[in-house]
């Protein structure tokens, strides 16, 4: 049956792609959204003013330190993040007391805590990209690793079976049924191929320690603390120290900061970790910002009590470690400015489209075959419904997540969890819906639902908070406006998809809309069709 190499690769491509296609779609959608994680954070916490200015690092560190001594003097660790990060104009402090983590945002000039609504924000969506949800992190990491491996197999087999990769480089022939779907699948895949290969390979590197634990065990032994020794070596960490349980007064953090700045230059520190604050074994770690580089920033470790300089990491990384860092940084794209970030986002969308068209192609081919032979295909009905539930259902779920952020009461308890629940409930309903409706109708109707949910989101934003599009434009708050406009565009995109599926042109649709409205208002209008 599979006589030639190419035929067997084609078989491999089909089944590697189909078997994990739906999870891959989820990973691609959440990952693509993740490129705008902090923009979504901003949208989901409209309480935060767009720009409140910053102070010098030393002054902000004092403010953070003061606050931490006030609310978490006995914490296991502190984490202080300066507002250098894009779209986060505030100072962030984290701490842990008795396995309980705390988080607060401070005004960078006055040091006053800023109260914001409880929300998962863009970070929650991005977390699902590698952590999935409602399962243990071990299971999630293994699942994601497996899917990424299948993805790599599907990509490489695709390059082998695609004979006309250059000849058909620009080829897209609309209006030709199966041919068009295949063209679309090819265009999405080939044009963003560098991105797809990079993202899959580096994604696997992210999880390499999870799915290849035996390699570490092979040289370091299988005991937990030996594994820790491996990670300390890989990440060039200064070995951690547990608390001595002897309370001691620490040096002011700003003293240590000025030493760090004398080594790296002014305003280079991006975040600070303090282990065992106020203890004889206090350790202070400074992390350098890499604003526009593919390598990781350096790390400085100090004794928090004596102020002694202990260690500098990342100063001279080894070849493999540098390669690892570069791949991970290209994957995350944290260095990207606005334009490059959009390019990442578009490439991610193409990847999402590639998976969606691949899944749809599977059903189209089988449906055509079943019709020709007059014999129903066994798995077709299942795959068709799973496709609808995933491809259009997931975007609906994410839109509902945004709606929930605005509609749930601000003081609702466990608000962030309810948002996630809203996402998965509505997504779950999208799997039930196509069971009750004919396949074609289910596609069209759910596309309209998605169009309405995304298209109306900016209006919901206008009704429920003061930072609507008009205000954003006047204040030139492009992050807030950007999210709103992107949502509008997504709404338009889903509407166009629905019209396409109904074989309706935009003009025809507008005409029927006008006609429907005029009958509704009882006015007589000339039929100009």
């Amino acid at each position, binding site marked *: 049956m599979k006589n030639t190499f190419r035929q067997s690769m084609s078989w491999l491509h089909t089944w590697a792609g189909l078997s994990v296609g739906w999870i891959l779609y989820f990973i691609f959608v959440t990952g693509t959204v993740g490129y705008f994680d902090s923009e979504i954070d901003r949208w989901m916490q409209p309480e935060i003013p767009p720009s409140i200015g910053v102070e010098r690092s030393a002054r902000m560190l004092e403010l953070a330190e003061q606050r931490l001594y006030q609310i978490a003097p006995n914490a296991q660790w502190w984490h202080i993040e300066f507002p250098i990060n894009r779209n986060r104009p505030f100072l962030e402090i984290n701490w842990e007391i008795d396995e309980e983590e705390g988080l607060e945002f401070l005004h960078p000039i006055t040091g006053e805590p800023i109260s914001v609504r409880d929300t998962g924000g863009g970070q929650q969506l991005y977390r699902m990209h590698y952590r999935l949800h409602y399962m243990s992190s071990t299971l999630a990491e293994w699942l994601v690793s497996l899917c990424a491996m299948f993805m790599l197999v599907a990509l490489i087999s695709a390059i082998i079976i695609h004979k006309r990769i250059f000849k058909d480089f*620009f080829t897209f022939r609309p209006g030709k049924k199966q041919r068009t779907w295949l063209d679309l699948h090819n265009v999405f895949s080939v044009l963003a191929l560098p991105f797809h290969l990079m993202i899959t390979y580096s994604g696997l590197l992210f999880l390499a320690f999870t799915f290849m634990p035996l390699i570490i065990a092979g040289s370091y032994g299988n005991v937990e603390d030996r594994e820790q020794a491996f990670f300390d070596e890989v990440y060039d960490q200064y070995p951690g120290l547990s608390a001595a349980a002897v309370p001691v007064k620490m040096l002011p953090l700003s003293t240590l900061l000025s030493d760090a700045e004398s080594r790296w230059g002014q305003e280079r520190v991006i975040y600070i970790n303090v282990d065992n604050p106020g203890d004889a074994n206090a350790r202070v770690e400074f992390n350098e910002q890499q604003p526009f580089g593919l390598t990781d920033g350096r790390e400085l470790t100090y004794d928090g009590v004596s102020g002694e300089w202990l260690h500098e990491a990342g100063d001279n990384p080894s070849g493999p470690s540098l390669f690892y860092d570069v791949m991970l940084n290209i994957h995350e794209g944290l260095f990207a400015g606005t334009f490059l970030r959009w*390019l990442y986002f578009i490439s991610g969308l193409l990847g999402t489209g590639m998976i969606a068209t691949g899944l749809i192609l599977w059903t189209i081919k089988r449906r055509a075959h079943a019709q020709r032979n007059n014999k129903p295909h066994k798995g077709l009905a299942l795959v068709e419904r799973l496709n609808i539930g995933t491809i259009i259902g997931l975007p609906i779920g994410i839109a509902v997540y945004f709606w929930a952020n605005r509609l749930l009461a601000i003081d609702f308890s466990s608000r962030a969890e309810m948002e996630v629940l809203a996402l998965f409930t509505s997504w779950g309903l999208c799997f039930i819906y196509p069971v009750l409706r004919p396949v074609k109708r289910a596609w069209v109707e759910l596309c309209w639902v998605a169009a309405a949910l995304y298209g109306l989101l900016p209006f919901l934003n206008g009704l429920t908070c003061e930072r609507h599009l008009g205000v954003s434009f006047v204040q030139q708050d492009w992050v807030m406006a950007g999210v709103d406009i992107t949502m509008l565009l997504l709404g338009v995109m889903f509407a166009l998809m629905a019209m396409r599926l109904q074989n309706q042109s935009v003009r025809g649709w507008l005409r029927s809309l006008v006609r429907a409205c005029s009958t509704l208002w009882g006015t007589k209008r000339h039929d100009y069709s």
Partner: protein
Amino acid sequence: MIILSYALAFTGFIFLSLAMKRHYRQIQSGSVQALRPLGKSQRLFFRVTGASCLAISLMLCMAGLSVAIGIVQWAGILTLAALQTSLLLAYRPQWLLMLILALARRSFPR
């Protein structure tokens, strides 16, 4: 710099598509004049021009940012520019013709 490197990538892809028979015909379909078949030397010219446009676009990216990030950005630019080219070829090939004619008039004024 970004706009220029994007424009160069887009122009490069138009030239590369002109070197292919199917797209050559597509682009010419908007013209009033009779079709002239794609000659060998013409094809070579399109290919060389297209490839050099892409190369200059890469150099601009690298000059504007660092070498490493320039390459990353260039890959993204290529993706978007190629997508634009293939969509225009499918739906509005006459726009590409107009663009080429405008470019030619600019570069070789009578």
